[in-house]
């Protein structure tokens, strides 16, 4: 990128700058959605379906309304505008519309003077159901034609054959994002028929466009404000209580707050799609991949949410980061009565990566080849066509480098301790070192960055230079990942001025920044902020007739000729921009085309200790080499990678929503197992810095790759330790013991 930027600025790109929201977070002063209050505030609560599928026979809200302190009880009848919502298709009723289609689906909401009264009122609603047989098997759903999307890929000769063939069937269980902050929102009526909303969200403008239509208001009568988010990981890409809390506020004329408890949060957001995948790989005797065939079914739950886009990702990354001339795959997203599914970190690629990496290991065994050599032999590089879509890869794609750099990281020493904290099973003292076997496994992944398939993906930002410094206005949602820090750094470097503040803007103050998802905000809102900052710099140098800009002011030939005060005497210098990534296309009928904006690769190596008799696994270490373009903030990069890896470890051996007849049996932190400090492996990492053609300063999104190939690496390591086939995640103790 040919840009002239300030050179003397502190806190610019490449430094491990501290988070601007760090101090309020460590002192407990940072305001999350669940912490907000307002004068005269009422509390909302939700009545939910106890069945995965049932007909609503009778609903009488009168007993609830009769309770002193109850101010409103609302149902589907009370939705004044569009009765349904949804990001891609508006197929989900705001409340149950005669038939509940998933366990926990909202039926009614109550506003009351305090949370206890609100919950009492929910319990008092008189309701009768006729339970119906839920559709819970994804293959049965496919047979019945209950489809959200069928995405085919046909590229190359379907009759191509190789000397070696491996086939496999793989399953991925339902993972929960389990952000520590549950769904929460505060809606305040503006007294003129409109409403202001602060709510847990990843994409305020998308929510807003759905909310005002259901409220039957004009767009400018609803303002959605950014607020503190206690983690997201995809769970907040689709709406939860947004419309409900606004309806209550408008009905009562009072501010209304709603906070889901953990039991509600589990059915209250979308989860990672469970998957069933059938794979067939064919290769020449030298290991060259000849053909990949696959059938992938993802369970989309009752409503569409983002399922079509998740299916697309799954099918387009069917073959992983490898060159293959013939790929024939069918991806299906089906409608069931299981809990809702949609976005979660990795977004469809997690599922197929588990399958294609297991296939690569099987192929290596069949060929008697080193698994890393096989991967390198077939590694996709810049200039190659993506095996599925045929899109020529123009971005940097250091697949070979991530594998080589990963392999060069030293292995940890053998198990040499009988400290139970270092053994599988931990302080339960369930095993001793002589029963423990070590295993090592590898996996490699490729992920698209930003939105694909001709989506008009953009981000707006406004940069304002005034005597007190620089403000960066954006609607991009900070969910914890550190975007506010990176935006500061980008603008400092671009402009040359140190005093930079990121100002979270509501939906009325600026246009959309797009979703905080798809590893896209560093590149998209970062790209917008860079573009606007460079323009402000140019305007400042024109106005000041200088050749450099710093925190002091405008310089010419090494001398300060104008302070920021003087420069902005006639007003601040401001530039607003809408940044777009290179355009993408709709796929043709065979899934071919330029579908993606950018790609990143990553490789993971897991080292595990296993007690095969008891089915216990301890993940000792997970190492990685990741293609990140440029480390804008090395400390943040490390945090994203370590956090992503642990979520991948969670999917590999612990995390699964256990669902029976559509009902989640473990909807609590007691029963849904999240990795603790004692489950966290050591992590060594190598960052590969080869610039993206369009990321700011060459940076790539980094959030998702750590979660993708870490899971198959852990399972490969358990296979290595046990010799078992292990075709599903999470790997449960009984999958190892066979009991």
């Amino acid at each position, binding site marked *: 990128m040919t840009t002239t930027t300030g050179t003397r600025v502190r806190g610019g790109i490449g430094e491990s700058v501290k988070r601007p929201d760090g101090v309020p977070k460590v002192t407990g002063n940072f305001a999350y959605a669940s912490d907000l209050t307002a004068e005269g505030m009422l509390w909302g609560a939700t009545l939910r379906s106890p069945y995965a599928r049932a007909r609503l026979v009778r609903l009488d809200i009168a007993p609830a309304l009769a309770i002193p302190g109850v101010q409103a009880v609302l149902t589907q009848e009370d939705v004044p505008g569009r009765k349904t919502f949804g990001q891609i298709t508006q197929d989900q009723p705001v409340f149950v519309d005669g038939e509940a289609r998933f366990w926990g689906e909202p039926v009614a909401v109550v506003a009351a003077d305090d949370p206890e009264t609100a919950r009492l009122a929910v319990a008092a609603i008189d309701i009768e159901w006729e339970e119906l047989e839920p559709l819970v098997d994804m293959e049965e759903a496919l047979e019945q034609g209950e489809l959200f999307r069928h995405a085919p890929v046909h590229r190359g000769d379907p009759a191509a054959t190789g000397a070696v063939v491996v086939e496999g069937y793989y399953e991925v269980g339902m993972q929960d994002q389990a952000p520590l902050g549950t769904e929460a929102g505060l809606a305040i009526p503006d007294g003129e028929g409109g409403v202001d909303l602060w709510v847990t969200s990843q994409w305020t403008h998308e929510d807003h466009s759905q909310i005002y239509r259901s409220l039957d208001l004009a767009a400018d009568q609803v303002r959605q404000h950014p607020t503190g988010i206690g983690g997201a990981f995809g769970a907040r890409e689709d709406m939860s209580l947004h419309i409900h809390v606004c309806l209550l506020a408008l009905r009562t004329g009072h501010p209304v707050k709603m906070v889901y408890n953990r039991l509600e949060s589990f059915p209250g957001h979308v989860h990672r799609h469970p998957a069933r995948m059938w794979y067939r790989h064919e290769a020449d005797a030298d290991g060259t991949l000849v053909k990949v065939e696959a059938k992938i079914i993802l369970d989309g739950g009752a409503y569409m949410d983002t399922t079509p886009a998740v299916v697309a990702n799954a099918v387009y990354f069917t073959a992983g980061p490898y060159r293959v001339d013939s790929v024939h795959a069918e991806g299906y997203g089906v409608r069931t009565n299981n809990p809702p599914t949609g976005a979660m970190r990795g977004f469809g690629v997690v599922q197929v990566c588990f399958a294609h990496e297991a296939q690569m290991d099987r192929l290596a065994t069949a060929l008697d080849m080193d698994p890393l050599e096989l991967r390198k032999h077939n590694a996709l590089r810049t200039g190659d066509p993506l095996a599925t879509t045929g899109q020529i890869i123009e971005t940097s794609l250091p697949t070979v480098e991530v594998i080589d750099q990963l392999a060069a990281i030293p292995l940890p020493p053998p198990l040499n301790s009988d400290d139970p904290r270092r053994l599988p099973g931990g302080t339960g003292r369930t095993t001793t070192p002589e029963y423990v076997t070590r295993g090592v496994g590898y996996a490699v992944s490729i992920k698209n960055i930003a939105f694909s398939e001709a989506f008009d993906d953009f981000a707006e930002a406004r940069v304002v230079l005034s005597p007190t410094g620089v403000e960066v206005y954006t609607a991009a949602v900070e969910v914890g990942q550190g975007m506010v820090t990176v935006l500061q750094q980008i603008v400092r470097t671009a402009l040359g001025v140190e005093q930079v503040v990121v100002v979270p803007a509501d939906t009325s103050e600026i246009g959309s920044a797009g979703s905080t998802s798809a590893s896209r905000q560093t590149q998209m809102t970062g790209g917008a902020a860079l573009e606007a900052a460079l323009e402000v710099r140019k305007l400042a140098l024109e106005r000041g007739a200088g050749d450099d800009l710093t925190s002091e002011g405008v310089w010419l030939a090494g001398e300060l000729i104008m302070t920021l005060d003087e420069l902005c005497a006639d007003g601040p210098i401001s530039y607003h921009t809408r940044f777009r990534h290179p355009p993408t296309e709709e796929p043709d009928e065979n899934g071919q085309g330029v579908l993606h904006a950018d790609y990143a690769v990553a490789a993971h190596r897991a080292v595990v200790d296993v007690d095969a008799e008891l089915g216990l696994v301890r993940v000792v270490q997970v190492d990685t080499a990741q293609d990140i373009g440029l480390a804008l903030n090395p400390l943040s990069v490390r945090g994203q990678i370590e956090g992503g890896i642990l979520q991948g470890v969670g999917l590999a051996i612990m995390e699964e929503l256990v669902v029976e007849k559509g009902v989640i049996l473990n909807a609590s932190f007691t029963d849904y197992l999240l990795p603790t*400090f004692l489950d966290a492996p050591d992590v060594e990492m190598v960052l590969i810095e080869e610039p993206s053609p369009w990321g700011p300063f060459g940076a790539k999104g980094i959030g998702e790759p750590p979660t993708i190939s870490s899971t198959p690496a852990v399972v490969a390591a358990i296979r290595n330790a046990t010799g078992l086939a292990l075709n599903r995640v999470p790997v449960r103790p009984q999958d190892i013991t066979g009991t």
Partner: protein
Amino acid sequence: MDIRFRLNGEDRAVDAGTSQSLLSLLRDGLGLPGSKNACEQGECGSCTVVMDGRAVCSCLVLAADTDGADITTVEGFGEEDALHPVQEALLEGGGVQCGFCTPGFVVAAAHLFESNPTPETDEIREALSGNICRCTGYGGILRSLEKLAGR
């Protein structure tokens, strides 16, 4: 019901519901939202406070049982311009992302360092194993506290 306790160094007389948790009293009754509600089952540690010298999950403590107790919440561990060393360490070392678990980690780690100023790595891991972080993978938290312990 009337409760008298010492909260963040101040003697307080407050009114609490008979079935109210200490967490609810702190957040909804006393305007101290630093202690977070993430699971209400004592599994995640987001609501950790120190009560009579022990780190406890305030969601599992009945407010009625705190009469006469000495309680320190995250709000009692440092001010924005005078941070506790644990708070400084977490900021420096990348121990904070979304921050929802952070108050619980601050309290639990400060409590650990009070009794053991130079904990071993495994002691840090074990002492904080009741606090769940979903963002960091614990690496940034561990390195922050190892450094504070002089390791």
